[in-house]
């Protein structure tokens, strides 16, 4: 016991001497880093603390992005199917759009902090707010495809006349136009924020979201039984675009894209890209005649596109936590070696 006390006393003397000599004391367990004994901290950020706030959006939002993408591009398919005289496909594609228009609002409302106030979205129309443009687009799109579906069913039930057909055409054109906005505004929504990985990919994101939307709308119709050359071609183009996008993110190697390449989120991003890109592309090219392979390609693309949306939101969360990602954009010549 006496020996131990003596050893501790010696330790204390050593500590005192070190403190007097150097002005600070080294050693684990003696001084927590940078507190409370004052120690210089890195000047590259405030203790490595995030500058930005992470997105508050819940799991419904990436799913809404996906549903909006499928519904919006499906309306374009419906219009072209109608123009080329495929009545069955027109009906199915319109119903896919309409189903999406029914699913989308509950997903959005569920994410709101005060769901009862969802109508406040329609208090104002602000062109500079992508969220406002999106809310109004969803209203326009739902109205248009709803009207188109009603007209289509009226015609099929034998109540059709020239007027109903005219209304259907107008509704389909409006549905396709607003559908393209619905499928792409979500990319603008992310691109026009302070989050570095979203903001720096603002010109790439529309391609990601539209290719994912169109590439999923065609497989949805294929799974409903419309295995046509047109849906096959759309699938091939979308998978090719997905492959190019995935490669672009990998080879650019920018610091700001690190959340898309590194860690868990990086691997989820890759998984989505590979499923929607090369996997479904190869299945479509090499086993085009095999119905099982076509089905697998369709399912792979849908899964990949859905995963990609979750990955982008998660990447934004990771990106918001890294002060250096933000500082590097604003001061590219800055010294970042001291980053934590």
């Amino acid at each position, binding site marked *: 016991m006496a020996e131990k006390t003596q050893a501790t006393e010696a330790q204390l003397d050593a500590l005192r001497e070190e403190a007097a000599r150097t002005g600070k004391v080294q050693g684990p367990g003696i001084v927590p880093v940078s*507190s409370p004994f004052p120690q210089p901290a890195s*000047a590259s950020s405030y203790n490595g*603390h995030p500058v930005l706030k992470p997105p*508050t959006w819940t799991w419904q939002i990436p799913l809404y992005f996906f549903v909006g993408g499928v519904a919006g591009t499906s309306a374009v398919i419906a219009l072209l199917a109608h*123009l080329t005289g495929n009545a069955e496909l027109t009906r199915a594609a319109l119903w896919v759009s309409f189903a999406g228009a029914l699913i989308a609002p509950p997903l959005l409302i569920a994410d709101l902090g005060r769901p009862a*106030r969802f109508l406040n*979205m329609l208090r104002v129309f602000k062109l500079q707010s992508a969220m406002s443009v999106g809310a109004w687009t969803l209203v326009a799109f739902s109205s248009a495809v709803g009207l188109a579906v009603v007209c289509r069913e009226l015609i099929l039930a034998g109540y059709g006349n020239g007027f109903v057909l005219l209304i259907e055409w107008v509704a389909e054109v409006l549905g396709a136009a607003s559908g393209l906005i619905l499928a792409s505004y979500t990319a603008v*929504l992310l691109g026009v*924020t302070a989050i570095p990985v979203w903001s720096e990919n*603002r010109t790439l994101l529309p391609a990601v979201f539209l290719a994912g939307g169109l590439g999923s709308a065609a497989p949805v119709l294929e799974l409903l039984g419309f295995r046509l050359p047109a849906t096959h071609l759309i699938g091939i183009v979308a998978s090719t675009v997905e492959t190019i996008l995935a490669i672009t993110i990998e080879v650019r190697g920018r610091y700001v894209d690190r959340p898309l390449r590194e860690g868990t989120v990086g691997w989820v991003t890759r998984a989505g890209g590979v499923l929607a890109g090369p996997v479904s592309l190869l299945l479509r090219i090499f086993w085009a005649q095999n119905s099982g392979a076509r089905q697998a390609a369709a399912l792979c693309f849908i899964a990949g596109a859905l995963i990609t949306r979750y990955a982008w939101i998660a990447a934004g969360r990771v990106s918001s936590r890294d002060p250096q990602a933000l500082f590097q954009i604003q001061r590219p010549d800055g010294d970042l070696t001291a980053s934590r």
Partner: protein
Amino acid sequence: MAISAFLTDATVCIGCKACEVACKEWNHIPADGFTFTGNSYDNTGSLGASTWRHVMFLEQPAQLGSQITGTEDPFRWLFLSDVCKHCENAGCLEACPTGAIVRTDVGSVFVQPDVCNGCGYCVVSCPFGVVDKNHEVGTAFKCTFCYDRQREGLKPACAKACPTESIRFGEINDLRERAQLRIQELQQRGYTDARIYDPKESSVGGTHAMFVILGQPEAYNFPPAPEVPTIHLKSAWSAALISAAMVFLVVCLAFVL
């Protein structure tokens, strides 16, 4: 009413956190709980839905002005009370789809609690990471600039409670002038790295909460060149339009071929 502003001075702050307490008490903001960050005396962390003033504690390997340190490792301890910047072009205000976030007659940016529906778009649109969603209430919160007090001719609670006048409150042009004079004074006294943080050159267009700091803004987690995200609307929508046109073209080709 006159356009008002804050000028918060790191060279005068003593880190007492009276501003944090005064803000919480006047505005009835809930407590944040007890968390030990391990970062100096700062257990507040950052601004957020329930933190509208945040005192930072910075340990820097530099001497303070013309101070004689008597050691080879100069050292200074700095404090600064952070707050919502009340930007001239505010990212949160631009992003808000409900019109809940408005510009007041004193020039501040105010979230109307009865209009906000908690969509969370302002949270990711603030270039300073200030506004956040309170998940219990469900809506967005940030510094109100004590608009209620200002309307009655009173100073904001933080400025009133500040014992060293590190937080100054007044007419914005007066404070900008005062900030310039303060920097000159500091420079003369050997504080060669004294500077004003008031990003007027960027798209934010200046802030209604300005700061006198020593050293680089990054050390205070201040973005060196903050931009209001809506400057990217044009490039983002252009890319969306081009991509949408491509989609239309692909579908056309798919059905015609």
